[in-house]
C-alpha cells in the first residue's frame, strides 16, 4: 500500500501508484483537475504527493511519448501562422508545466536527437538552462560556469545607452556611453531581447601579450590614440534637487539668492553663479562645494532668539551644493511644482568621463580588469599592416580561469571584422571554430589568429606571434573619479572625537580590527599606539579616589568633585573613546576608578581607599 499526501497532509492509500498517477495526469490535461496541480511518487519513502499550494516554481516542458516528441512539425507550422496558441498546446497535452517535485519523476532530454523510449519530456531548447543575461555571453558552452555568472554580472554594470529619452529624465547615477556599438559576435538572444536597441559596449582590437609589466594581475594597457578618438568615453549625470517645504506655523523655505543677514551666509563669491531666482544658469562650470541652488529655511526651533540680531532675521541658509570631489557642468535646469503645489527645482550636472588609470573594464566572459597604463599611440606594438591594438590584455588571465570562450570571441571577432559580417555565437549552436579558422585562412591571415607584431618602442620584431583580434568590451560603471579618496586630517565626530566616516564627508580611512591584529602579530606595539592616536586626550585623575579631577589652567588650581581642593592629581594620556566609556559607566551608576602607577615603578603600587 502506498500512502497518498495532499499538500503534505495524509489523505489515504492506493494499491497501484502508476495507475493513480496516470489517471490524475489525464484528468489534469482534460481540465477536470486544475492545471496548477502537480503529482509525484517518492520511490524511497513509498509515498505519493499531490501539490496544489501556491508559490511553487514551475516550468514548461514538451511531452515525450514512446520515444517521440508530441510537438510535431505540424504544430510548429500552425504556431507560426498564429493558428495555435501557447495555452492550446497544454490542453492538447503537447506540453506540461512541471514543478520541482514532479520533475523528480521525469526524464528530460536536452535535444530532440537524444530522445529515447525512456524519456518522458524534452526541453524547448538546450540553451534554456541559461538566464536572460547569461545567454548573451558568446560561446557560453566553451566557458566555465562561474565565469558565465561573472560575465552576465559584468553586462549588467556596463555603460551603454539605457534609454533614448535620457535627456529629459532625472535619474540618479546615470552613465551614457558616447559611441555604443552592437557586438560583432553575438548570440541569438541578443536580437530576441532587443539588446540591439540599447547596446552597452564597443568592438575593440585586443592583443594578448604583456606590456612592460603594466598589465599584470588583470590590469589593462590602453592605447592613448584610441582614447583620444573617443574609445569608451562616457558622460556621467547627477541630478540635484531643491524643494520649498512648508513647516508648521506657516513658515516656508525660499529658493533665492540668500540675503547677507541669513545665518550661515557663505560669501558673495559663492553665490556668483546663481541667477536672480537663486538657481544656477545652464552650462556654468562648477566644482565641489559650489552652490547650485540657493535656499533659505526658517529657524529650526520656534522662539530661537538671537540676542545680537533683529528678531526677524534668523532664517538659516540651506543651499544645495556640489558633492565632494565631483566637478561638472550644469546640463539642465527645471522648475516645477511638487504634490503640495510648492516650488520644486531640479538641476542636472554633467561630467565627461574619459577613461583613466583605475577605471574598470570587462569582456563578456567574466574577465574584468582595471586600466593600469595608458600608452601613447606611437609606443603601441603594431602589425605588418600597421594595426595597433586598442587594448593589451594579459595572457596569464586565461589558463587558470579556463575562459576558452574569451579566446573564441577574439577569433570570431577578427573573422567577423575582416569578413564584414556578424558571427553567431549562441550557446550550443554557435558557428564552429574550424569554419572561423577556414575563413581567416581564406582571407590571407594565419588561421590561429596570431600575427607578427613589432615593438612600439624599438621597432624590433617580437619573437612570439601575438594573438590579436576584435572583441566586444564593456566599460563598467565603477570609475576612480567616484572613488578616489585620501585624508590627512579633517572633521571628527562630536561624541567620540574619532574621524568621521565616508568619502563624501572627507572622512578617515579606518584601521580596523584585522589591521590591528596584523600590527599586534608583528609585535609593532608602538606603531599600533601611534595609529590609534587620532582621538588622544589628556585627562586629570585624582590620586586618592581614582576618579576624574579638574585642573584649572587659568587659575592654576586643581580639585576633585569628591575629595575637594587639597589633592594630588596626575595627568594621563588615553583615548577619548575610553574616557567616554568611563563616563557612560558612571552614567549607569558604575564607578570605574583608575589606579595609577609610575611607569618606572618597581611594581609595588600605592594603596588607595576604595
Amino acid at each position, binding site marked *: *500500500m502506498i*500512502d497518498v499526501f495532499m499538500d503534505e497532509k*495524509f489523505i489515504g*492509500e492506493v494499491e497501484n501508484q502508476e495507475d493513480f498517477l496516470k489517471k490524475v495526469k489525464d484528468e489534469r490535461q482534460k481540465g477536470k483537475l486544475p492545471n496548477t496541480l502537480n503529482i509525484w511518487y517518492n520511490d524511497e519513502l513509498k509515498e505519493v504527493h499531490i501539490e496544489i499550494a501556491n508559490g511553487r516554481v514551475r516550468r514548461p516542458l514538451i511531452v515525450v511519448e514512446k520515444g517521440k516528441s508530441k510537438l510535431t512539425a505540424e504544430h510548429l507550422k500552425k504556431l507560426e501562422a498564429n493558428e495555435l496558441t501557447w495555452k492550446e498546446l497544454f490542453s492538447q497535452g503537447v506540453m506540461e508545466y512541471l514543478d520541482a517535485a514532479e520533475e523528480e519523476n521525469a526524464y528530460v532530454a536536452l535535444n530532440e536527437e537524444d530522445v529515447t523510449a525512456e524519456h518522458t519530456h524534452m526541453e524547448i531548447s538546450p540553451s534554456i538552462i541559461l538566464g536572460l543575461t547569461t545567454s548573451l555571453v558568446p560561446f557560453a558552452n566553451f566557458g566555465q560556469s562561474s565565469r558565465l555568472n561573472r560575465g552576465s554580472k559584468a553586462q549588467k554594470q556596463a555603460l551603454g545607452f539605457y534609454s533614448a529619452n535620457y535627456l529629459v529624465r532625472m535619474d540618479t547615477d546615470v552613465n551614457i556611453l558616447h559611441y555604443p556599438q552592437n557586438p560583432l559576435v553575438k548570440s541569438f538572444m541578443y536580437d530576441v531581447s532587443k539588446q540591439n536597441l540599447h547596446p552597452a559596449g564597443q568592438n575593440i582590437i585586443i592583443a594578448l601579450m604583456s606590456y612592460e609589466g603594466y598589465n599584470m594581475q588583470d590590469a589593462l594597457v590602453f592605447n592613448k590614440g584610441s582614447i583620444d578618438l573617443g574609445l569608451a568615453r562616457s558622460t556621467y549625470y547627477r541630478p540635484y534637487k531643491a524643494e520649498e517645504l512648508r513647516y508648521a506655523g506657516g513658515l516656508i523655505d525660499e529658493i533665492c539668492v540668500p540675503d547677507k543677514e541669513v545665518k550661515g551666509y557663505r560669501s558673495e563669491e559663492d553665490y556668483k553663479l546663481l541667477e536672480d531666482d537663486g538657481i544656477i544658469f545652464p552650462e556654468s562650470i562648477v566644482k565641489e562645494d559650489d552652490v547650485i541652488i540657493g535656499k533659505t529655511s526658517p529657524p529650526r526651533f520656534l522662539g530661537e532668539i538671537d540676542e545680537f540680531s533683529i528678531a526677524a532675521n534668523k532664517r538659516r541658509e540651506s543651499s544645495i551644493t556640489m558633492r565632494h570631489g565631483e566637478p561638472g557642468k550644469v546640463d539642465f535646469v527645471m522648475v516645477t511644482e511638487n504634490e503640495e503645489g510648492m516650488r520644486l527645482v531640479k538641476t542636472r550636472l554633467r561630467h565627461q568621463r574619459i577613461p583613466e588609470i583605475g577605471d574598470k573594464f570587462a569582456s563578456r566572459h567574466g574577465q574584468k580588469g582595471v586600466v593600469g597604463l595608458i600608452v601613447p599611440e606611437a609606443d603601441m606594438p603594431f602589425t605588418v599592416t600597421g594595426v595597433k591594438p586598442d587594448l593589451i590584455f594579459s595572457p596569464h588571465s586565461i589558463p587558470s580561469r579556463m575562459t576558452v570562450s574569451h579566446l573564441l570571441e577574439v577569433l570570431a571577432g577578427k573573422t567577423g571584422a575582416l569578413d564584414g559580417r556578424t558571427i553567431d555565437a549562441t550557446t550550443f549552436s554557435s558557428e564552429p571554430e574550424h569554419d572561423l579558422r577556414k575563413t581567416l585562412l581564406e582571407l590571407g591571415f594565419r588561421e590561429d589568429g596570431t600575427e607578427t607584431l613589432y615593438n612600439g618602442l624599438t621597432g624590433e620584431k617580437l619573437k612570439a606571434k601575438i594573438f590579436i583580434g576584435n572583441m566586444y568590451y564593456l566599460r563598467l560603471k565603477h570609475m576612480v573619479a567616484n572613488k578616489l579618496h585620501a585624508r590627512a586630517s579633517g572633521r571628527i565626530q562630536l561624541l567620540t572625537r574619532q574621524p568621521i566616516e565616508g568619502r563624501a564627508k572627507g572622512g578617515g580611512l579606518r584601521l580596523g580590527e584585522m589591521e*590591528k*591584529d*596584523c600590527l*599586534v*602579530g*608583528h*609585535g*609593532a*606595539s*608602538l*606603531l*599600533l*599606539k601611534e595609529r*590609534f*592616536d587620532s*582621538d*588622544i586626550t589628556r585627562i586629570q585623575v585624582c590620586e586618592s579616589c581614582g576618579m576624574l579631577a579638574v585642573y584649572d589652567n587659568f587659575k592654576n588650581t586643581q580639585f576633585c568633585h569628591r575629595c575637594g581642593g587639597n589633592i*594630588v592629581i596626575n595627568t594621563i*594620556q*588615553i*583615548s577619548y*573613546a*575610553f574616557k567616554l*566609556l568611563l563616563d557612560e*559607566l558612571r552614567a549607569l551608576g*558604575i*564607578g570605574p576608578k583608575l*589606579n595609577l602607577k*609610575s*611607569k*618606572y615603578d618597581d611594581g609595588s603600587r*600605592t594603596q588607595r581607599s*576604595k
Partner: protein
Amino acid sequence: METVAKEFEGKLPQKIINEAVAEAKKRSCSKDQLKKIIQYLKEQYDDARITAGEGIGIVTAESFGEPSTQMTLNVFHFAGVAEVSVTQGLPRLIEILDARKEIKTPSMEIYIKKEFNKDMNVVKKVAASIKETKFADIVTEFTINLSKLQIEATLHQNRIKDLKLTPDTIAKALGEGLKNVIVTSSPNKITLKAKDAENELMEIYKLKEKSKDIFIKGIKGISQVLPVKKDNEFFIVTAGSNLKEVLEIKEIDETKTSTNSLFEVLAVLGIEAARRTVINEAKKVIENQGLDVDIRHIMLIADIMTTSGTVKGITRSGITSGKSSVLARASFETPIVHIINASLVGEEDQLNSVIENVMLNQPVPLGTGLPGLVAKMIKGAEKGIPKGKAKK
C-alpha cells in the same frame, strides 16, 4: 661521549642529545666533533624557539583564520565511505573549536584485537552486534488496516534470523518503547493497536511513524556500521558514537578504538585524551582540505581549550569567560553582562593583555611594547621630577 652529553643535559631536549650521540657513535666521531655537532644543534634549536614577546595567540588565530576563509569557498564539506558520511571542512572545524556537545556526524573507528582480526566473520559478527536495530529495519511492509484501525507490520524473516530475534522479543521491545499500545505477535507479523478505541486516521499514521523508530537491539546511537580493510587489518567505521558501551565488548582493541566526539572521550578517557582528540580532529580537517597549519598552533588551541580540566570552546561561554580582564571579556560579545558582573564584585583590571591596552591607547605588552626601562628614581619623584634635579 657521555661527558659531552652530560654537559648539554637540560639545555637541549634529551631526545635530540641521545639521537646525536647515537649517530656520532655509528659514524665514529671524535669527542670534539660531537661537541661541535651538539653545539650547532643547540644554535639551531635556540633559533627555532619562539622569542619572548612574540604574539603567539594572535599568530595562531591568524594562521587558523586564513585557511578557514579559504574553506568557506570550498564546497567539499562532507565526505565518507559508502553510507557513513562525515562532516568535514569548515562546519567540522567550527564544531571542534566551539566544543559542541552534539556534533553533526558522530563516528567511531573500532579496531579488533589481534587474535580475532584475521577472521572476517568475527569482524562482521561484531559489527552486526554493535549496530542499532530499529523496528523499521526488520519490517518489509507496513499496512494500515482501516476496518480494524490497526497497523500490521510484516517482518523480514531473513534479517530476524541474522539478528537472532524472535517475533516475541520484538513485540516485547515494542511494548517497552510504545505506551498505550497493544502489541500482538504472530510468526511473521506484528500488529499494533492503540488502547483508546476512538482513533483518527491521522493518529494511526503518527503511531506508524513512531513505531519505526523503536529501539530493538544493538548499541544505542550507532546507526550504521561498515567493516573496512586497510593494510591487512580490519576495523569498523560507524555512524553514531557510543564509546562507553563499545569499549565493553570483549573482541575490541580498546587501545586503538576512537571516536570523534570530544565529550565522549572526555567522559570516558579524561581530559588528556580529550586534548589529544582536539589536536587529531583539527589536524584531520586541515589535512583533508589540503591546507597546511603548523601543529604547534593546533596544540596551543587544544591546550587553551582543555587547560581548565573540562573542554571549553572558543566562544563567549567558553574560554572567553575565563579571561582575567574585564575589558577583554567585554570587548567580545555581550559586554553589558561582563561589566555589570564586574561592578557587582568590584573587579580590578590589571591591563596585562593586548585588547585592554589598545582600548586605552597604550602600547600593548608585546614585541616592541614589552621591554621596560629600568631607571634609578629620585626620592619623591612620583609627584613629578623636581626642577634642577632631573640631571642627577
